[in-house]
């Protein structure tokens, strides 16, 4: 399979909807199959790489923080960025700057940059195909 350039636009915030996990799994599959990926995070999805996400214990199940090992989307993205870098592929993530400002979500993990809708236009122009995974 030839290498493709794929662009994604996401909208959902973390911890709210199965679309987030599905979107991240699609990104993972694209990276694993050797494609370059660009992501424009719009609206609530700018919180996916929020650096201050923190794990917690689960008193209902009697789990410590370590046992619960709660998933954090910032860790998912960090792992994907590392996997792409390790394979010499591009995984670019641009957070919509206005959406970041609205939400106070400025603190993002390394590898995430501030962007604008112009980035999505650029991604669309450069890529072989795009997928919008919008909030419903």
């Amino acid at each position, binding site marked *: 399979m030839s290498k493709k350039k794929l662009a994604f636009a996401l909208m959902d915030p973390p911890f709210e909807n199965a679309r987030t*996990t599905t979107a991240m799994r699609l990104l993972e599959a694209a990276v694993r199959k050797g494609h370059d990926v660009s992501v424009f995070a719009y609206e609530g999805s700018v919180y996916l790489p929020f650096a201050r996400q923190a794990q917690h214990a689960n008193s209902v199940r009697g789990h410590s923080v370590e046992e619960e090992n709660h998933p954090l989307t910032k860790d998912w993205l960090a792992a994907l960025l590392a996997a792409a870098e390790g394979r010499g592929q591009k995984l670019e993530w641009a957070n919509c700057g206005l959406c970041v400002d609205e939400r106070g979500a400025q603190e993002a993990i390394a590898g995430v940059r501030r962007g604008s809708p112009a980035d999505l236009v650029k991604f669309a122009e450069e890529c072989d195909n795009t997928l919008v995974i919008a909030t419903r």
Partner: protein
Amino acid sequence: MAKKILQLIDGAYRCTLEEQDDPAIWITNAMKGAGGDFTVVLSGNAVNYGVKAQDASGLAFGAWRQTMPPRIHDDLAKLMEKGVAVHVVEEDVAERGLERGELIAGLKPIARGAVPKLLATHDLVWRW
């Protein structure tokens, strides 16, 4: 005496992989522990929460691995151990092709038409 609260849980699998549980069931467990008096009715797709063969393990992104996947049927069993009655709407179970033997023990089948009577026996009804 605590108010009797009926939890109607209809939506399912909305964020279970990220949260490692269903938030409505999790908070019912937590509130039961805090002294609340609850009954649960699972309807729609949420009846699948009772299937005992569920296995959501294996989620991975790069080097990250999920080590504590959701086990919602176990969370329901824990609720029942605490004395919470958990009903499943039997028509919704049947429509999804589920057999009784595929569900965890202790779930109480309830006909859709009998739910209003159950509502009437509670002080509060919360739909999730």
